[in-house]
Structure formats: structure tokens, C-alpha cells
């Protein structure tokens, strides 16, 4: 019904006002398996067919059950798998100028000033299947500024932009201690809270004004981000690790101020707070360090290596994702981060390692209406993989970003890929 109405409207417009926008030819992918990473926990479709056109996915389902538009270009991928483009919520490679550490709290600074779209490092990430990143300031100060959600594909800033502000970057762990004058965690938390209180009061004044109560507040560029946070249009991504630091993050950012926030890093002995993060709805985006090595004396563990993802999952946390902190771990190794999570105990029975680099970060960043899964209506950010991406021997061979084929290395990896010795 809606479709018919839209068609009628389109006809009307084309007849009376504008020339009809030329519709692209639809493209169809046939794959042995689709990891769809569905919001509802749907996992895979065997013998899958996916139709996309004009940069969007039109349909996905079992081959034979999906209607294929007439004249569609068919890509038969044989034994290969398809999956949604991957998302990294902690990346520093989209440009220059990582840390403006003049002030201790800088909520007004915007990473968007620094972006060099589709630079060589982004391109490498894209080739490996990382199609969306959150480009954020570093952790040299307690509030580094505003991140930007970007596609890694070709084009200018406007083409790449998914959302600005992508997040407010807060840093509560060790790095900002270096900022100066011997400050430690207590003082850092005090300054973060002070800034958040100012920001919240500012946002509330604007809300009141928009309701017709009170005078128009004076614009404060440094505090405008809090109007976005208050309206839940963006989130706080917080550099936090160690039990006591994560506890402060949870208590302050979500408990006290009620903002949407997620743990970024969550390393060392953070995971025993998994229950509290879950209670407050705070997701855990783990990395680049995701193993706890037997060396840490403060946290005895019988000489074994423990995985952060294992710990968070063991405690029942439903939203666990992975990051690279690129270039700390190269952008192109995002899937390796989740694969190593599996090695160190993370249960991957239901492709949690793939969900942790696709739909989980998409939901956490509030961009799951566009990316993170293979579903009708979403951006056609699609990867062709030689097999299960949780196994690092398998690699991404073809990448589409918003329906544009930006990489195809089939055949360039030697006959090796499909003809390798089986054992």
C-alpha cells in the first residue's frame, strides 16, 4: 500500500515537476551463506540471495524465495559468504591532529576538523571490510571532544559522513593523568562531573526555552554537545579500564547523569562489573587490549591468560563489541580482535564474534537503522568473505560501500584460495 502510494507520488513528481531519477540496475548476490547479524538475533541464511540497488539493500532471503528484479546483474559467489560491513567505534586514523590537550575538559572540540576522507589507512581498513568507523579524539585529556561517524569508502567528507557528533569522547583511565600537575583519578572524575553538570544545566535551559518557558539561553559552543546527549541523539564513548575506573564511569555517566554511554576498552579487571554495566544498559566495546595476562599482580588468576570478552560474556552481558583503537591495532585487523576474543574464551556459537563487529556497535552508536546487518532498507555495505570471518585465514575479497563496489580481489590471491591443499 505504502509502496503504491510512493509510486503514485513519484509518478506525479515525474510528470509535473522533475525528470524521473534514473534508477540503477539492481544487483543480486548469491552466496553459500549470509551472516545477516539481525537485530533480533537472527543469525544466518544458507544458500542466500541478496538484492541491492541505489545504495540500499532491497531484499534478502533464501535463494529462490527472493524476488529478483528483471535485468538484475547477478554475482554468483559460489562457496563464499556474505556479511554486513564492519564497524569500529574506536579509531584515530581518519585524519590528523589526535589530541588538543590545552584544557583538561574540551567538550566543544570537534574531530571533524581533522578528517582526511578515504586516506590510505582508511582505505586499508575498507579493503579488509571495515566500512564504518567512529573517529574520535585521543585520551590525552579527560574530555577529548566530539567524534564523527564516517564511512571509510571513497568520496569527500559529505559522502563519508554518517553522523556528527558521533560521540563525546571521555577518558577516565590512565592516559589523561599525563595531562599535568600530578592529577589522579579522584581529581579527574571531579573535573568530568563538574563539566557534565554545567552541560546538563545548559541543555535543560534550552529544553525549557523550547517548551516556551524561560529566556533564550546564550549559545555556548563548548556545551552544545550536551543538548545532543540530553536528546539521546549521540552517546558518550568512554576510555575506561580497571575495576575502579569502570565503576566510576558507570556511576557517573549513566547512573548520575543518565546519558547513553558505552565502555570503550574495558581491559584488565573490568569484567567483574559486567553485571552493573548490564543493569545500566551500558555496552562493552572491548579492545585493543582484550586479554588479561597473568602478570598483573593486583588481580590473581592462577597463571592463565583471561579474555575480557570471555569475562563480560560469562557474567551474562548481552552487548559485547570489539575495537582496534587504530592505529594501536591496525584498522584492517578489527575482525582479528574478535577472533582473538574467541580464542580467549568468548563463546562464538551464535556468531557473537561477528555480531560484535557489526550489529552490536551499530546499535550502541544508534546507527543500526543504516548499518550493522543485512536487512532490507539498510545501506548496501556488503562484504564477500572466503568463509567464516571468525577464522583469520579467511579474508574479505569484495567490498561494496553503499552499493558501490570499492574492492574486488577475487583471483588476485592466486588460485590458492579455492584450490588450496585440503587436509
Amino acid at each position: 500500500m505504502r509502496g503504491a502510494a510512493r509510486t503514485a507520488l513519484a509518478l506525479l513528481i515525474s510528470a509535473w515537476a522533475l525528470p524521473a531519477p534514473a534508477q540503477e540496475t539492481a544487483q543480486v548476490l548469491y552466496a553459500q551463506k549470509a551472516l545477516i547479524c539481525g537485530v533480533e538475533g537472527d543469525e544466518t541464511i544458507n544458500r542466500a540471495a541478496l538484492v541491492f540497488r541505489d545504495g540500499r539493500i532491497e531484499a534478502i532471503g533464501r535463494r529462490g524465495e527472493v524476488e529478483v528484479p528483471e535485468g538484475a546483474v547477478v554475482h554468483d559467489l559460489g562457496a563464499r559468504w556474505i556479511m554486513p560491513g564492519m564497524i569500529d567505534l574506536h579509531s584515530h586514523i581518519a585524519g590528523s591532529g589526535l589530541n588538543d590537550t590545552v584544557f583538561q575538559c574540551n567538550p566543544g572540540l570537534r574531530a571533524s576538523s581533522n578528517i582526511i576522507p578515504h586516506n590510505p589507512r582508511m582505505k586499508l581498513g575498507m579493503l579488509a571490510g571495515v566500512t564504518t568507523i567512529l573517529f574520535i579524539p585521543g585520551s590525552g585529556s579527560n574530555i577529548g571532544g566530539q567524534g564523527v561517524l564516517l564511512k571509510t569508502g571513497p568520496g569527500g567528507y559529505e559522502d563519508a559522513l554518517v553522523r556528527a557528533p558521533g560521540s563525546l569522547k571521555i577518558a577516565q583511565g590512565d592516559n589523561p593523568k599525563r595531562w599535568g600537575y600530578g592529577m589522579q583519578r579522584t581529581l579527574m572524575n571531579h573535573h568530568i562531573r563538574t563539566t557534565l553538570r554545567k552541560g546538563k544545566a545548559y541543555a535543560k535551559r534550552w529544553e525549557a526555552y523550547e517548551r516556551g518557558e524561560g529566556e533564550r539561553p546564550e549559545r555556548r559552543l563548548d556545551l552544545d554537545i550536551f543538548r545532543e546527549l540530553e536528546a539521546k541523539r549521540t552517546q558518550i564513548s568512554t576510555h575506561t579500564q580497571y575495576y575502579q575506573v569502570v565503576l566510576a564511569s558507570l556511576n557517573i555517566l549513566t547512573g548520575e547523569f543518565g546519558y547513553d554511554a558505552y565502555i570503550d576498552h574495558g581491559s584488565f579487571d573490568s569484567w567483574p562489573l559486567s553485571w552493573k554495566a548490564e543493569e545500566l544498559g551500558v555496552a562493552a566495546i572491548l579492545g585493543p587490549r582484550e586479554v588479561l595476562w597473568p602478570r598483573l599482580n593486583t588481580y590473581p588468576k592462577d597463571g592463565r591468560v583471561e579474555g575480557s570478552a570471555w569475562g563480560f560474556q560469562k557474567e551474562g552481558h548481552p552487548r559485547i563489541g570489539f575495537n582496534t583503537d587504530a592505529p594501536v591495532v591496525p584498522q584492517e585487523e578489527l575482525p582479528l580482535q574478535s577472533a582473538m576474543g574467541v580464542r580467549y574464551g568468548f563463546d562464538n556459537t551464535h556468531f557473537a564474534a561477528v555480531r560484535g563487529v557489526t550489529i552490536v556497535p551499530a546499535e550502541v552508536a544508534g546507527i543500526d537503522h543504516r548499518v550493522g546487518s543485512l536487512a532490507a532498507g539498510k545501506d548496501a555495505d556488503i562484504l564477500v568473505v572466503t568463509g567464516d570471518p571468525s577464522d583469520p585465514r579467511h579474508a574479505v575479497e569484495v567490498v561494496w560501500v553503499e552499493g558501490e563496489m570499492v574492492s574486488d580481489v577475487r583471483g588476485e590471491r592466486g588460485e590458492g584460495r579455492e584450490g588450496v591443499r585440503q587436509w
Partner: protein
Amino acid sequence: MVALAGLLCAAISASPAEGLAIQCAKILTMNAEDAVHAPGMVWIEDGAISYVGGVRDVPAGWTLLEEDEMWAMPGMVDLHTHIHSGGFADTNDMVHSVNPELRAHPALRPANRLVKLACSSGVTCLLGIPGSGTNMSGFGVLYKTKTSGSFEEVVWKRVGGLKVAQDSNPARRAGTEGWGNCRASMGWTLEDVAGKALGARREGRKDPALESLEKVMHRELPVLIHTAGSEGVVNTARMWSRKYDTQCVISHGSFDGWKAASAIAEWGVPVNHGPRTMDYFSSRNGRLNGTGAEYDAAGVPLFSLNTDSSVIPQEEFFLQGAMTARLGGDPYRMLRALTIHPAESFGLAERVGSLEVGKDADVVLYDGDPLDTRTRVMRVWIDGEMQFDREASQAFF
């Protein structure tokens, strides 16, 4: 629980009196024929392998271990490691620029924490070498990653082979001489000491400082050479294989070193690649080059991998193979690069690197493909004695 684990270990280690037979789904022998037995059996007697092949009747009185879901592979061999002291301590004596008299074995702490982790990931034989702070930093110690035992019980060769460093790191050394050390200078320093060792042997002079180096110069001991970049790789190969006829193995060979691969393949110089197995910047061809895959494809003999542990953690040795496969290498050949190739290139294949009759019973049981990150190492035997049991230890891999 501990007592129970102890009992279990005792039960499935082969005692001298009777043998142990391990039956499993698949045995990757890594022998010259690339034999795979599925299902198959490995027999262990007196610490050595006495049979590898299809399933057959086990002699009376033996212990039969039926693991019908598991895979067996020889323990992995890493030639470039620095975990013998339990950290990076004691790995670089940087007083002189060449140190042919130094030996790494006094720094060895058997069964240290890092060695135990190595064992639990299926790595059973290590060459623990000095660092690359000087041009010739001394002789490495060859040892097994047993999780207990004395120095004598874990060490195979006190003097396992020489470590030379010819590129990058030793250039930083100013040392007592206080000079800036670049490639030409490093080349001179190395040829100077090599010439002295050759001269000592020729003239019958007894010089304790040159004794082991003399053996290297006469192929009686192998040498592992830290080198990188295309010019470094080709220089190193020319010196140690053309000018001097040594049993040399090029270690690292990183950055655009792979561009020299066809030359050194022609000269027959083996490459022990890692910890960096990919290159983007130095190769300047606009691609992310899987450098390991490039070496192997160029036909370098006995291509093997390393971790340079703890640069890459020793327990992630297998991942070097997985990542090299990811970037274009043949996955099966990467298993050889972790086992028989390092063993052969360093003259160790008589005892380790494959599952063959007469070799040390260094056997690893996996619950799947050894190169897959999701696979777990379940049990490890070294010299026929069980050193690691995942269920008893509750380790993750």
C-alpha cells in the same frame, strides 16, 4: 583436584616399561610426503615415537588413549625467541659490538611463566637467543618447553646456534666506542670477526672467544641472522651464504625484504620470517603485502615463521601462520612453516618438527585445525611426557 590431575597426567604419559598409543581423528605428520592419517595413531615408547600411521592393535599392557574427535600435530618449533629468562631481562649484553664468546644459556630459567604459556599453545621447542642490540650477540640455547624440570632436563643444546644482527637495531648502538654504526660498518665488523675465526682454525690457534664461531664458519653450527629490507636481506645472504659457506637462516626479512626473495631462493638461503609478516609502507606498491606469502611463493627453501617472542607472545606462534595464510599464503604450508621447516633449516629435524618414527615424542592434540583461532590445544607431550592438559589446567587455548 590437583591430585586427580596429577594422576591423570601419570596415566597418559608413557612410562619406560610400557608404551602409550594415541588414537585420534586426524594426524598431520608434516613428514616429507605430507602424510595425513585420518583416523590415525601415534605410539610413544621411551620418550620417542615408535609408530605413526593408521589405527592398529596396541601391544598388551600399553595405555590406549582414544581421542576420536581430535587432531594431532608435531610440537611447533620457534627459532627466534627471547623468553628463556622469563622476560626481556638478560637478553642483550651490549658491551662490545661483536660477542662471539657469549652464550644465552646462563639466562635460562626452565619452565618459567612464559615457557609454560608457550607449551600450553603447542610450542614445544625453542631457540632462546640474545637480542639484536649488537652485531653478533652470542649463541642461543636450544630447549624444550617442559613445564617442570631442571636445566639439564629441558636443554637440548647449550650452544644451539649463533645470533647475528645486521640491520636496524644494532645501528642504534654507540657503545663504548661511541661511533654511529651503519650498514657498511656493520658489514666490516662482522667480516672482521669472521675472518679472525677462519684464521684461528687455519693456523691452529686456540682462542676460546672464537671457538664456537669457528664451528659456524665451518657449518658445524647454524647461524640465525636478524636482517630486514631488500638491501639488508640480499647483503646478509651474500655474506653468509656466498662469501662464507655457512648454515645460515635469514630471520625477520621484514618490510620490502621479500623483493629480494627470488635472489636468495636461487642461493638456497632459508627464511625464518616474522614477527612482522605484512608490509604496506616500505614496499611502495600501493598494496598491503603479505610478506610471508611473497617469500613462500618465490620458492625460498624451508620458509618458516617466528614470533620474536615476546614481541609477539609465544602463545600466538600459530597465529603467525594464520595471518600469513590470511594475506595470501597456503594454509597447509604455513603449518609446515611452524614445524618441520624451522627444524630442517636449523639442523634439528633429526629429532623434532614432524611425527615420524624415532623422533622425540613432542605431540600436540588439538580439538580442530591447529591454524584456526577457535581451536584449542588440548594436550601436549614433550619427550613422551604429558606437560599440559587443558581440562586439568582450565586454560583457554
